[in-house]
């Protein structure tokens, strides 16, 4: 029955500690990019990545990618323990070269999309997503 100051502080701090996990550039992410691009330079324009600025829960974060003329688009979450998310390869019957999905983010970090174009060039976009961990109310 006693209510101590420590209890409330502990409750409050759990959330703070989880929400400010910073983005870390991750060697595995660099390796994945190198494997995909063969080390080629990447343009800043040509691929669009849409992601929320703040995700209410890191378990289910909606994202979309689009790159006109892309053969494929690789998506990485550089701050996850393993950065791979998905690689979309567009076929002959594809409409707009776009796709949406829902992904897991282990904390606040940059999501990266790299498009491989039909002419063999590459383009990159990234977007920072802040992950809040609610988790109150069970």
């Amino acid at each position, binding site marked *: 029955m006693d209510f101590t100051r420590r*209890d409330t502080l502990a409750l*409050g701090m759990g959330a703070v500690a989880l929400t400010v996990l910073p983005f870390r550039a991750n060697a595995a992410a660099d390796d994945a990019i190198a494997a995909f691009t063969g080390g080629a330079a990447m343009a800043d324009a040509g691929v669009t990545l849409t992601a*929320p600025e703040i995700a209410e829960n890191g378990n289910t974060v909606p994202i979309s990618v689009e790159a006109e003329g892309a053969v494929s688009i690789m998506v990485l979450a550089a701050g996850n323990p393993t950065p791979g998310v998905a690689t979309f390869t567009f076929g002959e019957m594809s409409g707009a070269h776009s796709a949406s999905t829902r992904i897991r983010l282990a904390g606040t970090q940059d999501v990266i999309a790299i498009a491989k174009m039909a002419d063999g060039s590459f383009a990159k976009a990234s977007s920072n997503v802040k992950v809040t961990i609610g*988790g*109150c109310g*069970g």
Partner: protein
Amino acid sequence: MKFKAMTAVAALLLSVPAMTLADPDEDSLAINGELDMVTETAAPAHLSDALDTIYSGWRFREDETQALQMDDFDNPGMVFADLGLDQWNKVEGEAGKSCASCHGTPEESMKGVRAVYPKWNETAGEVRTLAMQINGCRTENMKAEPYKYTSGQMTNMEALISVQSRGMPVDVVIDGPVQATWEAGKEIYYTRFGQLELSCANCHEDNYGNMIRADHLSQGQINGFPTYRLKNAKLNQVHARFKGCIRDTRAHTFEAGSPEFVALELYVASRGNGLSVEGPSVRN
């Protein structure tokens, strides 16, 4: 006593000082762009001392979460209603029957059902939640094993039955033979639990609209159950949610399906009389 509880809420609220969203947002909910939902309405008469307006939990979520409920193909809860339909048609138990054997299609037989539960069952002489009624039919009419109260099979079936009432106003009866149960539920709602000495009302009546840790606190309505939560990526049964809320106050909690939670469900459902049935809804 009162002072302590207020400190607890205040401390929880203070933990995310940067955000002070004070109110539900102004968004309106139409499913598939056509089925309009009432997410805000005048509080039922029995709440007149406590609240003027009641709001669906949908109004307190971020836009991205809200969007997941606005289209039945975006709503991950709907695939579980599909699984519920497979269960509905499956013959199980010694009587050799499925739900469909007696009830036909859920579209025909289950319209409006979710909106009025929990309700009095004359034959059994008890207040029954929808989950109890589903299990009642399984054990009495099918001679089959009951579903575990908060299991996936139960929430699949609840989702299938809820969908048939989507958009209809919640309308649970609170007097007559259910009155004593309703009073008992009300008492639990206002009882302070646990080391933090917090009642449901301390959070969901006194502080809805405020941020608690990183969560935008709603009125704790249950018109959206079963709810697909992003947190655990599955449908959540209402008693499982009650359990989580009580556990957060560091209290021992009641069991799913216990008389205490049946009473609490009836009472909380009645606080949402007038809101649309949304199940399966999407929450964080």
